[in-house]
């Protein structure tokens, strides 16, 4: 006897806890198997690029903080200011460069900790969530002591940073680095060996190397598929050319490989922070740049390695104190695209694991 089967449309989101924001996935399912995925984005569109055209270069620093990826505010500021400084020929003092590097790496760790915790919740391992946020809270405290903010820092400025590191801060930072490495062992004990966790991620959502390159995947997604590329090493900015670090690359291409990449990246970030604090030069932290800085006519593209991947800013100036046009190349957008393409054929329950491993932030996708 032949059973009559048909494909079913299933609406996942926009209000779904595992979509990390407001992402709507229109699924076509054949039983438990996914036959097609169509992401519907734009719920968090804030027309950031247009808004940036109406604000001065300094005011835009406050805007890129919250308009893009809200978990990595400093990485957004860095990408934007790199473009501004390159176009304006603004020289950043060496001490400011090293401070920026330290801050960016702390931001990377805090972003990866949020990812690890929320992904744990997606997979049913809700214990690890609280542990990750415990460590993230320490990083936010450290960043608060330097910048005054906990999520939106507005700390980098054209030509440097707002303020020097407070007294005794580097000792506290190094102390935290040691503690984090201890805690990382705990995360591994909680997750890496856990048979339930392994069953949910090992071999799930394989993104082959060619597909990763062709679909523009970047950051930890691409490195989990064996693409050995990191903007920090390929096109060094700030002090990244002067510090030693390894770029973790794993060949698996599955969710577990992406997990391994991020776990190893946190370890490398600690390594960078330690080197940077040790070699922190003395001197000015801010070049003299007027409040309403005017950039010469021209265009520039600056790319950085944000915790989510290759974050680029394309900026066109017409000689005014406001940008003429800004285009943001968001890493979450291309990573989301790459992984929704390979979701076909997996079970609905795997979809949550795959989606979580992208580490999407919807305000970064929509902007």
């Amino acid at each position: 006897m032949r059973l009559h089967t048909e494909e079913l449309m299933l609406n996942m989101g926009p209000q779904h806890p595992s979509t990390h924001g407001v992402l709507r996935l229109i699924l076509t399912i054949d039983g438990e198997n996914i036959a097609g995925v169509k992401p519907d984005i734009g719920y968090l569109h804030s027309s950031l690029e247009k808004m940036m055209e109406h604000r001065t270069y300094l005011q835009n620093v406050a805007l890129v903080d919250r308009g893009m990826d809200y978990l990595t505010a400093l990485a957004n500021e860095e990408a934007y200011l790199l473009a501004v400084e390159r176009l304006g020929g603004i020289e950043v003092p060496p001490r400011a460069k090293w401070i920026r590097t330290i801050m960016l790496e702390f931001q990377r760790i805090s972003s990866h900790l949020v990812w690890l915790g929320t992904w744990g919740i997606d997979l049913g391992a809700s214990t690890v969530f609280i542990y990750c946020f415990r460590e993230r809270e320490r990083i936010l405290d450290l960043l608060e002591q330097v910048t005054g903010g906990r999520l939106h820092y507005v700390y980098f400025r054209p030509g440097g940073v707002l303020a020097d590191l407070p007294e005794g801060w580097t000792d506290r930072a190094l102390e935290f680095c040691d503690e984090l490495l201890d805690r990382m062992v705990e995360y591994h004990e909680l997750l890496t060996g856990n048979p339930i966790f392994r069953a949910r991620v090992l071999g799930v959502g394989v993104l082959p190397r060619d597909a990763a390159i062709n679909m523009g995947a970047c950051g930890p997604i691409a490195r989990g598929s064996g693409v050995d590329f990191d903007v920090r090493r390929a096109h060094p900015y700030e002090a990244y050319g002067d510090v030693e670090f390894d770029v973790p690359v794993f060949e698996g291409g599955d969710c577990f490989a992406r997990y391994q990449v991020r776990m190893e990246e946190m370890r490398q970030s600690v390594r960078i922070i330690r080197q940077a604090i040790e070699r922190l030069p003395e001197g000015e932290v801010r070049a003299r740049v007027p409040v309403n800085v005017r950039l010469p006519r021209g265009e520039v593209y600056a790319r950085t390695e944000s915790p989510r991947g290759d974050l680029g800013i394309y900026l066109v100036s017409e000689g005014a104190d406001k940008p003429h046009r800004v285009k943001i190349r968001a890493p979450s957008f291309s990573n989301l695209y790459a992984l929704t393409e390979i979701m076909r054929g997996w079970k609905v329950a795997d979809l949550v694991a795959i989606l979580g491993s992208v580490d999407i932030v919807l305000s970064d996708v929509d902007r």
Partner: protein
Amino acid sequence: MAELAARAWDAINGLYLGLRVTFRVLLDRKITVKYPLEKLEVSPRWHGLLALPLDPETGKDKCIICLQCERVCPDRCIHIEATGKGKERVLTRFDIEMDKCCYCGLCVEVCPTDAIVFIPEYEASTRDRARLLYDLEDLHRAAPKEPPARGLVKMGRGR
């Protein structure tokens, strides 16, 4: 059979390691605070609510009505009006719409006389939206008794 035993051992060992962490943390010091009853200290550079401290010597406003903060504010939430000419100029209006404010701190940074400062407060919630418009009187009242220690680099002054 040997393979099954190895897998079973891995599973038991993995669960044991995870549960060991859980039980260790159970006996650890608590990291949470009971918020409305206990409060955390904020750092000296905290981007909190804004205030206008009076000059302790003259008892008048430190603001020289240069309007830099009004211009630099990305959300345009500061509104300043003044009367008089030259040295006689006095503030008649200094309104901050705290519901628009994004706590970026650019106003504090550009102020040449430290007339506008952050205070280590963060509880601004109210049931009435109109009370989020802080006028001159509110901002004076919120001012700290002693100026907070801050290590910010001021615009155009170098270090």
